[in-house]
């Protein structure tokens, strides 16, 4: 088989992995070596579905011994199979990198034979890149769950990031679609890598020549919308994994119908893009805005509001905490105002030292005033009698925003 065809098949099979981050690495170029990694990562291009292309994301092979209903490479699926040779992956990576197409390699694989056999081949590739090619770009490597401790620990010395996909947010969901699998080996391997990261970090504090181990940390991915879990189930799982295994990222992949299996959404169903977006917003609120997961999702509110973002939705349920005075309030409270992001909140806290801020200045700073104005007071806020209720505010904001996801009744007259 020609290399062109192989690449097409194995890139196609790898594209359902949504992670493409090349951030968190701080590898410097070595003398006479090739490449480095940027702490914030670089997206070299974007696919036509608007996703970032940062890494050469491929499978080593799409042969697989498992038959997971949600996966294109499942063994019962009638598709063309291919496998790269070690040297082919190395050549592709180096040549793409030299042309500035990519930040590095994202290497995953179907399982052929068993976990160790597969992991051993992945390891050979990354080892060759680092030692023979002296490649210092980014490498994201899939940990094959159940692979032996020795292989995983060696791979971690060459990779910047390692990840294992949970696939389904809950054990029941996974058992339904992939009866041969369970979360237990995933947890075991995540635990192993997370412990090793901590251990190497400790040792590095004492001895500078201790090598780095998975310096950009671990991540995982869950498929959303294939099984009936609620948003609360998903985000509580995410929260649990963030805390227990010290993950850098959890990715949420809206299920894309690829099978006629009756356990799954029918072919041709739209992937749940908006839901996916709301989950990421919630994830950000947990990680950067100081929200606890139970504030946003709890048994009373197990699903995220599709029409409005989770921060606005939280604010409308807690009108007693508003309005927040922009000129005096604590940074943490300003962060909780809908329409104010981390950047704006920091600028506000700095700028107000030089005088009270007005609405037009907030707008200049970058606050989304159409949402924020209902929740804040600033220097030139008009005095108002009686506060509007949450429902009124919600209606006003919805009327003033447009979304490509939400069909509005067409009231505007057409000219022609």
């Amino acid at each position, binding site marked *: 088989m020609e290399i062109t065809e192989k690449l097409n098949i194995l890139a196609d099979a790898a594209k359902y992995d949504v992670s493409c981050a090349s951030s968190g690495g701080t590898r410097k170029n070595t003398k006479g070596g090739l490449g480095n990694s940027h702490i914030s990562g670089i997206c070299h291009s974007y696919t036509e579905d608007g*996703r970032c292309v940062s890494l050469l994301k491929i499978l080593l092979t799409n042969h697989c011994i498992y038959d997971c209903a949600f996966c294109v490479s499942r063994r019962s699926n009638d598709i063309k199979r291919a496998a790269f040779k070690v040297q082919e992956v190395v050549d592709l990576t180096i040549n793409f990198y030299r042309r500035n*197409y990519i930040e590095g390699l994202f290497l995953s694989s179907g399982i052929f034979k068993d976990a160790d056999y597969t992991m051993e081949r992945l390891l050979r590739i990354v080892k060759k890149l680092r030692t023979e090619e002296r490649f210092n770009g980014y490498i994201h490597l899939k940990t094959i769950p159940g692979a032996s401790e020795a292989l995983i620990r060696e791979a971690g010395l060459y990779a910047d990031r390692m990840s294992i996909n949970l696939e389904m947010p809950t054990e029941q969901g996974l058992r339904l679609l992939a009866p041969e699998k369970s979360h237990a080996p995933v947890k075991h391997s995540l635990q192993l890598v997370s412990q090793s990261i901590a251990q190497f970090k400790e040792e590095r504090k004492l001895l500078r020549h201790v090598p780095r181990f998975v310096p950009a940390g671990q991540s995982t991915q869950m498929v959303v919308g294939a099984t009936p879990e609620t948003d609360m189930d998903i985000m509580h799982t995410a929260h649990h994994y963030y805390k227990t295994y010290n993950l850098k990222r959890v990715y949420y992949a809206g299920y894309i119908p690829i099978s006629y299996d009756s356990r799954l959404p029918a072919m041709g169903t739209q992937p749940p893009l908006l839901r996916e977006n709301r989950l990421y917003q919630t994830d950000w609120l947990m990680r950067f805005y100081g929200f606890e997961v139970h504030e946003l999702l709890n048994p009373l509110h197990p699903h995220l509001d599709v029409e409005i973002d989770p921060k606005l939705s939280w604010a409308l349920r807690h009108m007693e905490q508003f309005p927040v005075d922009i000129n005096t309030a604590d940074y943490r409270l300003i962060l909780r105002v809908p329409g104010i992001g981390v950047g704006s909140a920091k600028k506000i806290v700095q*700028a107000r030292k030089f005088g009270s801020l007005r609405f037009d200045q907030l707008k200049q700073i970058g606050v989304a005033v159409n949402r924020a104005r209902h929740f804040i007071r600033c220097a030139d806020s008009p005095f108002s009698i009686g506060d509007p209720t949450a429902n009124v505010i919600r209606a006003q904001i919805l009327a003033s925003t447009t979304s490509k996801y939400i069909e509005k009744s067409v009231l505007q007259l057409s000219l022609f």
Partner: protein
Amino acid sequence: MWVYLFDGTFIGLLTAVFERYDRKQHPVRIAPQQRYAPGLMDEPVAVVSDDTKARRVWQGLGKRLNTDWMSRLYAAFLGEQPEGFQHLFDLACYIINHGGDVIANYGNPHVLYVAQLHRKVHREKHRMEAFVRFQQLADGIFFALVEPDFNVLPLISRHFKNRYADQRWTIYDRRRDYGIHYDGSGVSEVTIDFIQHTGKHRGVLPADLLAEQEVLYQTLWQGYFKNATIPSRKNTTLHIRHVPRRYWKHLTEKAFLPLAL
């Protein structure tokens, strides 16, 4: 009003700040000499760029600002905006008069303008780090054409030098007609007579200039790009927001096949 005419260089701009204090003139408008159209009430003053004067102003600012802000000022200058020059001039005076702390005052129009212009330039710098596409030439040099909105080559040279330390490369700004070349040890500025060397098709180099495997890797990359898309998630608006059309002609994955024939 006093109008200071400077030569359009950063040194010139800093010299102008020096002159404003030396001559105790206020308020001052500033304009690059080449683009200046005299106004009725103007009193033009020609500013002669002077390294020593410029350095004194730069060091003066350096005492008041951290290095982050210093590089922001320079980046904003590379934005090449006529009103940007004025804001930089006024901002420099604001800092000199009131001390470095006022740089955090985003309520001040000059601070905000320069901060925002810096952001635009920085975004373009970042885009160039992403969108440069090298093609390997027969003599081994990796060559890329770019047409950035702002003059960002001075800002990206360090990134490429660190990353591709073991290969020779050239990045050429077609709009400003100069490039940077790395020869294995240092980066220098170059100009190339283009029409002589390149073909006519979208700034792509003719096949006989390219290295043997170049077309293969371009084809592989295009195939990869196509197959990485999930058709049921297609979102052209988002795609174009991330990769605006004006950059397409120099992006290998967006060019027509066959390339270079």
